[in-house]
């Protein structure tokens, strides 16, 4: 504002980052975990067996169809999800005669239902990064979108603030107080800058239609039907007939799947999932979805719609106009579904860098303010608030997630609403971390909560030994890398938290230089 362009952008960067920093931190932490959502699912649901060999698609159709026919009474619709490397089971879902959604998992070879504990798994963490929790999803979408827009402003204004972005990248001066925090924030931000830019802008594109209803309103009209017309134009899809209530036989699933295979080139005859709408009704239809090419950035599978009698009635178009294609590319980059194992780890580490970028930014704000408050010898209420929010969130949230994993192993398997209890345990722990942060001196709060996080993460593999058969003693020799990878990652996290706690405790042990101590005495409370 007043002063140079760079100064005003620095101001904008500081404040746009600070106001929403804690929400962004939650989004980064849970979104990063989301890159391993199914792996976390499998650790939290250890009853899911390993998939040794991908079964034949037609075999999967047979066992899925048999289950629906024999176990489900008059569903309005059902789907069969085909197993893959990261989803090693057959998923069956249906909307029953009771209008409720039901889901079950089958062993991909025997077709027997799997008994799996009720757990939120990695999916709950993944969904939290855009749906938050304990609130209607529309409100959460708006909140997350507002915070993401702030982040977009913070990133770009952060970049233009720099005179020498390249040089800053190579300078790190440790143990120099504010200067070190600034260096660390710079390195973390610049190191994964393409990732941060991509993830923020594409993040905006996911939920964009939620936040600009007026554009559709003015362009198409304000009614619900007008909105539908817009989305129909944008994403052409099959409009089935309503359920007629007249029973009629359907051709076996195998028949339409075989027909779909005939239409797809060799090497692409792989299913993704199949759906039956109004099964057993005269207006029933099948949707047969082709699996995307392995490693494809934009989904390239075709969906074929077949009538009850087995005629092809609709082919979902693969052609996309330029804006839609660009959006698909960016969404694909954001989700990373195309990524193989190595690239998935790159995504995970980039996410961690983003998390650390937000965290160091929040800490940097308090370090600057504390220096000034000390120099001026006054109590700074804003500083006291942010310091507490920082301890309570930057350590409290990961601590809560550790408790989420502990709850998964310790809650009795038969408990009602088990998945909800797991999440409640997480939020209770996070909430208690705030309370703890308020009642402890800031630095002690950091050290003690970091220590607790180190213990809870570091001991998770041991808890796994005590509560399941699929612990490191078995997973490592068996080459069960999903289970072993989770346990080892938790050990590494425990170690990282322990190192952080130790580094802080060590600096605490060193006496402050004399002038600083004098000033501290003058500042009184502000230093506490």
């Amino acid at each position: 504002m007043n002063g140079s362009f760079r100064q005003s952008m620095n101001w904008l960067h500081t404040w746009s980052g600070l106001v929403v920093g804690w929400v962004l931190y939650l989004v980064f932490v849970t979104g990063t975990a989301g890159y391993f959502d199914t792996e976390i699912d499998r650790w939290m649901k250890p009853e899911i067996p390993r998939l040794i060999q991908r079964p034949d698609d037609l075999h999967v159709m047979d066992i899925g169809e048999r289950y629906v026919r024999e176990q489900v009474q008059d569903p309005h619709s059902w789907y069969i999800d085909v197993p893959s490397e990261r989803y090693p089971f057959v998923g069956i879902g249906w909307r029953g005669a009771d209008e409720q959604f039901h889901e079950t998992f089958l062993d991909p070879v025997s077709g027997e239902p799997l008994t799996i504990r009720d757990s939120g798994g990695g999916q709950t963490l993944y969904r939290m990064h855009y749906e938050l929790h304990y609130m209607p999803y529309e409100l959460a979408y708006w909140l997350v979108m507002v915070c993401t827009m702030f982040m977009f402003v913070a990133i770009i204004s952060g970049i233009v603030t720099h005179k020498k972005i390249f040089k800053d990248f190579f300078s790190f001066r440790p143990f120099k107080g504010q200067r070190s925090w600034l260096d660390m924030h710079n390195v973390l931000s610049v190191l994964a800058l393409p990732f941060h830019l991509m993830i923020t802008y594409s993040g905006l594109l996911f939920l964009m239609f939620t936040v600009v209803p007026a554009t559709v309103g003015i362009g198409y009209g304000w009614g619900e039907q007008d909105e539908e017309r817009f989305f129909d134009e944008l994403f052409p899809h099959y409009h089935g007939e309503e359920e007629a209530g007249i029973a009629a036989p359907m051709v076996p699933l195998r028949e339409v799947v075989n027909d779909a295979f005939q239409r797809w080139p060799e090497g692409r005859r792989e299913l993704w999932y199949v759906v039956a709408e109004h099964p057993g009704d005269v207006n029933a239809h099948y949707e047969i979805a082709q699996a995307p090419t392995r490693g494809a950035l934009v989904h390239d599978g075709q969906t074929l719609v077949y009538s009850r009698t087995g005629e092809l009635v609709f082919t979902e178009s693969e052609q996309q106009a330029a804006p839609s294609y660009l959006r698909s590319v960016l969404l694909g980059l954001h989700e990373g579904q195309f990524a193989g194992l190595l690239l998935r780890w790159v995504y995970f580490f980039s996410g961690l860098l983003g998390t650390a970028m937000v965290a160091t930014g929040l800490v940097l704000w308090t370090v600057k303010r504390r220096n000034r408050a000390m120099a001026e010898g006054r109590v700074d209420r804003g500083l006291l608030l942010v310091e507490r929010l920082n301890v309570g969130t930057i350590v409290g949230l990961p601590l809560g997630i550790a408790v989420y994993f502990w709850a998964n192993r310790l809650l009795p398997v038969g408990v009602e609403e088990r998945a909800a209890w797991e999440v409640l345990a997480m939020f209770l722990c996070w909430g208690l971390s705030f309370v703890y942060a308020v009642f402890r001196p800031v630095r002690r709060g950091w050290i003690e909560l970091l220590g607790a996080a180190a213990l809870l993460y570091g001991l998770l593999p041991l808890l796994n030994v005590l509560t399941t058969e699929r612990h490191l003693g078995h997973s490592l020799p068996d080459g069960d890398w999903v289970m072993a990878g989770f346990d080892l990652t938790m050990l590494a996290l425990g170690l990282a938290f322990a190192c952080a706690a130790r580094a802080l405790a060590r600096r605490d042990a060193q006496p402050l230089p004399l002038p600083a101590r004098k000033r501290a005495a003058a500042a009184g409370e502000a230093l506490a």
Partner: protein
Amino acid sequence: MTRKSSAAIAPLLSRIAAAVLGGYLLANGSALALAYLMPGAFATALEGGIMVGFVVYLLAVMWVFAVDSTRRAWAGILLPLALCLVVVGIGKWRAAA
């Protein structure tokens, strides 16, 4: 930018309003205007317009906090917004005709 007296708060609030609300309106307006200007199906043009709209929002916020008077900050939002509305008006009129 140290402590602000209450007299300095009003222009700041005005700028925040220009950035957050004005920027939001301009983002919507530019998305629609672009949709009417772009060739091809209107739905995908609007999709593209909204994608550009986020960048417009970003630039609007930066503009508001970069210029040295509050009046210029608002002018930089309202004039482009008026232009967008004219384009949208013509676009709707031509679509109806």
